[in-house]
């Protein structure tokens, strides 16, 4: 065991460089007036947190949560039946179906966002069929875009739990007098809960931190918290405010994550 421990060294180094160090920097910058252009002297202060009172930021945080909840709920409602049918399928082409579902994930997400953007413009390729979606700037555009990005992340954890589920349990329920519908709600659904929790986490977290997607599909009109953070770091170079907002989001997401985990009684979550 001791010899093997040396093998973890590269990973530990990598983790330190890419996670521990940046986190330490964010904490430092958030709780001080450290300025990237005047390194050297700084004092610790909580003054920067007043930025959270700004209506722009509170609205963005609210938007992020709102879209994340709506998109996650819709992904669950669309994704569960798909996962269920896939898992129950006895088709020889089952693997092919699964591959089709993963395929979009392998293409560049930015490319897919731009593709949706083009389709949502008043003038798009769809004009050929006499259709003008003209959705840019609407909530619907963001919701459709997010669902298309994150749906596979909802389907897969649920699919893998359903696929591994012991068929005998379903038979046992029927044997004990449960109809198909009751079997689903009393046995299949509760037993796939671990997969649902994973799916929810894997959908909700990226939806909450998205920035390129809302920026393009809202035409800059709807700000999510990701856009605010990007703005602080990339445009106004206000690293202190950017770090504070990032930190707050992180804490909120950890709280959310722990709250979701409480529902996962079986501890079968894939993460």
């Amino acid at each position: 065991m001791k010899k093997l421990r040396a093998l973890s060294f590269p990973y530990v180094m990598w983790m330190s460089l890419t996670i521990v160090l940046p986190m330490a920097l964010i904490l430092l910058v958030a709780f001080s007036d450290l300025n990237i252009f005047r390194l050297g002297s700084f004092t610790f202060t909580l003054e920067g947190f007043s930025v959270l009172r700004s209506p722009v930021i509170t609205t963005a945080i609210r938007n992020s949560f709102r879209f994340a909840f709506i998109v996650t709920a819709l992904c669950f409602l669309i994704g569960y039946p798909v996962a269920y049918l896939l898992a129950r399928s006895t088709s020889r082409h089952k693997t092919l179906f699964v591959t089709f579902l993963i395929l979009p994930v392998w293409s560049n997400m930015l490319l897919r966002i731009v593709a949706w953007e083009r389709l949502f413009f008043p003038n798009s390729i769809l004009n050929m069929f006499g259709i003008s979606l003209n959705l840019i700037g609407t909530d619907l555009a963001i919701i459709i875009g997010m669902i298309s990005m994150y749906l596979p992340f909802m389907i897969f954890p649920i699919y893998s739990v359903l696929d591994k589920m012991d068929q005998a349990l379903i038979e046992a329920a029927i044997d004990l007098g449960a109809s198909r519908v009751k079997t689903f709600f009393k046995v299949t659904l509760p037993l796939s809960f671990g997969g649902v929790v994973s799916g929810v986490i894997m959908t909700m977290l990226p939806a909450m931190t998205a920035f390129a997607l809302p920026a393009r599909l809202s035409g800059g009109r709807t700000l999510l918290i990701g856009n605010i953070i990007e703005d602080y770091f990339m445009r106004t170079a206000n690293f202190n405010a950017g770090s504070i907002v990032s930190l707050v989001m992180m804490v909120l997401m950890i709280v959310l994550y722990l709250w979701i985990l409480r529902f996962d009684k079986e501890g079968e979550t894939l993460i």
Partner: protein
Amino acid sequence: MKKLIDIQNLVKQFDDQVVLNNINLYINENEFITLLGPSGCGKTTLLRLIGGFETLDEGKILFEDKNIADIPAHKRPINTVFQKYALFPHLNVYQNIAFGLKMKKMPKETIEQEVLKALEMVKLKGYESRNIKTLSGGQQQRVAIARALVNKPKVLLLDEPLAALDLKLRQDMQYELKEMQRALGITFIFVTHDQEEALTMSDTVVVMNEGHILQIGTPIDIYNEPKNRFVASFIGESNILPATMIKDYKVNILNTEYTCVDHGFGEQTPVEVVIRPEDIELKPAQGGIEGLVTDVIFKGVHYEIIVMVGTIEFIIHSTLSQTVGTQVSITFEPEAIHVMRR
């Protein structure tokens, strides 16, 4: 006795492969019947057909004179104890057992009464709130039995329920299951590949192989009068020898003429005879079938003695030991000879 289940000319195929071929079998009320055979013989498929988890291709199954195909699986008065128990991992012991009664929308107080009674019957009183993952294999087994029996089915199907238990526990459960069946008056259909289990528990044994029923009978019949070589060798150890039926009650085994109790095979008919190892008595060489003791193994209650007669190996179970290398005569009573058609 009343016929409860009547299986007529049943055929079942999976992808053009016939797994059950022309099965005819009736099961009486209150009977403990065992489907016995090696894996792949179709016994589990037959059980699943009765339970409603498979659909048959030809023939029919009558349940109390009604075609069972008209009753969906969840409405049949039949419950199953599954091979790996199939207990619901998200429910505790109480909830598992109560599942069937809840589906029937029984009042809460009745459910509680019945579940506690069932727990008592399987000797798991006080385990109500236990998570099933914390139970041992034997305890899970008992929960599975309680979960099925609490519904008071007319028929209980058991799919190799004891296979995962260790020897001692298995023997205890055999006894307990038999007791429960007697006390409750429920028909048990039991599937196993373990011949000893089948002989110990059953009223009737159905020996199956390759999708066919080979023999139906009481354990004593099946053991003493196996219909063919497969049944004879599957049910316990046996010496199967080529022989010639000279005429009724006379058989020639290894050039020695014996009186036997079998008849109706015709004259000068080539047959096979089965002689159980415990039916053979070894005597000092005195003619008849003679052979050389080549091996003596102590088995606890008896010795297993191997005697070579030319190239034919005899297995003998005896409480008396022999010395390796001695010449002995193999003797047996007329009743010990079981003649089978070749």
